[in-house]
């Protein structure tokens, strides 16, 4: 049951978005988020929304995945919408008034605006993880952050930690499964009782899991040393990240849209 969890939710494919250099994808995604916050009227926001919908269409990711990515953040979206709906004061007559609740036209429009903005934000970020494998993403982050080595940030070590974490997630999930079965076989009650009781029941699962994780770490470190690991200095990579014409084309498109939105903001 725990085995079915997928990490990073990567969907392999061969679309334009899949083939883009992952460094460009990360930077453009950040740029897109900035763009969403720069856009301050409905026309700009609609353009940004159409842009990401088109990206999804090109990527071949099923539209249902957009909905799935929104699900965990639904409470946040609703909370933001409700706050805006009730607490924005308009200049005209309130549309609706009952007890302490007053709703103005501005409140409704701001609420819709915020919902669209957050939805675009979330599906935009999801597109990155849907179309890029976690390993490639780690690689790209390592390279993007590499200038920070100058200020002694251990970039290679962080990336190596991420790689190993991704590698060991399925292994440790399997192990957790085994330990849970073993403890259940000894009469542990994991699914009953109040919150406190359940939390306490986790202790006999976490302790063996930690002990085993440390043991694994020890053995892995030895195996890595045996394979001549000596840190990031002088290390090369099998996979080379190369920017192609495609990446520059998409970047150009993105910058054009961004430019249009800025102009649009100034005009309206």
């Amino acid at each position, binding site marked *: 049951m725990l085995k079915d969890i997928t990490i990073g939710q990567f969907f392999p494919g061969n679309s334009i978005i899949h083939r883009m250099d992952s460094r460009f994808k990360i930077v453009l995604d950040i740029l897109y988020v900035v763009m969403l916050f720069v856009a301050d009227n409905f026309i700009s926001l609609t353009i940004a929304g159409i842009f990401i919908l088109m990206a999804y269409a090109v990527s071949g990711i099923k539209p249902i995945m957009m909905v799935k990515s929104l699900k965990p953040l639904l409470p946040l979206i609703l909370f933001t919408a409700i706050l805006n709906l009730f607490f924005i004061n308009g200049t005209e007559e309130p549309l609706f008034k009952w007890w302490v609740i007053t709703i103005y036209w501005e409140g409704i429009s701001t609420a819709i605006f915020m919902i669209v903005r957050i939805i675009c934000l979330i599906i935009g970020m999801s597109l990155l993880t849907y179309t890029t494998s976690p390993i490639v993403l780690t690689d790209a982050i390592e390279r993007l952050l590499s200038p920070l080595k100058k200020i002694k940030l251990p970039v290679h070590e962080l990336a190596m930690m991420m790689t190993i974490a991704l*590698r060991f997630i399925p*292994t440790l999930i399997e192990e957790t499964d085994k330990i849970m079965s073993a403890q259940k076989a000894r009469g542990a009650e994991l699914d009953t009782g109040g919150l406190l009781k359940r939390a306490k029941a986790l202790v006999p699962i976490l302790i063996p899991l930690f002990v085993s994780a440390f043991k694994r770490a020890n053995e*892995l470190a*030895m195996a890595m040393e*045996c*394979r001549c690991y000596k840190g990031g200095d002088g290390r090369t990579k099998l996979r*080379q990240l190369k920017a192609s014409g495609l990446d520059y084309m998409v970047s150009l498109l993105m910058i054009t849209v961004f430019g249009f939105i800025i102009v649009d903001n100034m005009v309206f």
Partner: protein
Amino acid sequence: MNIIEVKNLNFEYPVTDDEGNVVGGNKVLKDINLEIPKGQFVAVLGHNGSGKSTLAKHFNGILVGNSGKVYVNGIDTSDDEKIYDVRQTVGMVFQNPDNQLVATIVEEDVAFAPENLGLPPEQIRERVDSALNAVDMYKYRLHSAHQLSGGQKQRIAIAGVIAMRPECIVLDEPTAMLDPKGRKSIMSTIKRLNKELGITIILITHYMDEAAQAERVVVMDNGNIIMDDVPKKIFSQVDRLNEVGLDVPQVTQLAYELKKEGIDISLEVLTEEECAEELLKIVNKN
């Protein structure tokens, strides 16, 4: 020419009391002398705690003895400046395949060692492909490691070591966690690497039938090497092996029992075919 030379090697783990003070040592290796020629397939046998794994970790400088020396191609393993030459020459494979794979994707993991050596990408690609072909796992190169069986994972671990182009591979009980099918595939892979690529193999094991397939068997007990010979000569000494807590292959055991009953059979049988032949000879004689 010897690839590995061990000279008067002693090693002890420090024993500490409750407060962490060193109060003595637990001698694991006692004055070991061993020479391993290039291209040989050697099995090291011994029951738990005989010091066989500890000895293996000295072959590529993971451990360094308290006294005595280990030389790999003439390089002293205690020389810190040349430790990576030593590790590149002598690769090591451990018991648990899960704990030696570094990357999620098979080919990325095999690429780990050549990446560490700082090779250009084209050469890494070439080494990864040839290493995966050598263990017959090329078609799995884009799979996730955790989807593979134990035997397949262990073969990936071996490929990860081969990608360094070592002259010698030390395998520390590589089949202990595998099912019979996985064990078989690992043994045939090891033998092929030894024959086709001429890689020196040191196989640490406690399975007698695996040791019987080697050219030479070294038996360890309590930190000492007590026997060192070809498998036939080793396994015919059934009483001696039993004394140090080791069994012999089943067919040898059968011959031993028959001999005790007064039947004139050679104890130098290791495979089922050899045993059948010997039995046929006796049947025909009577």
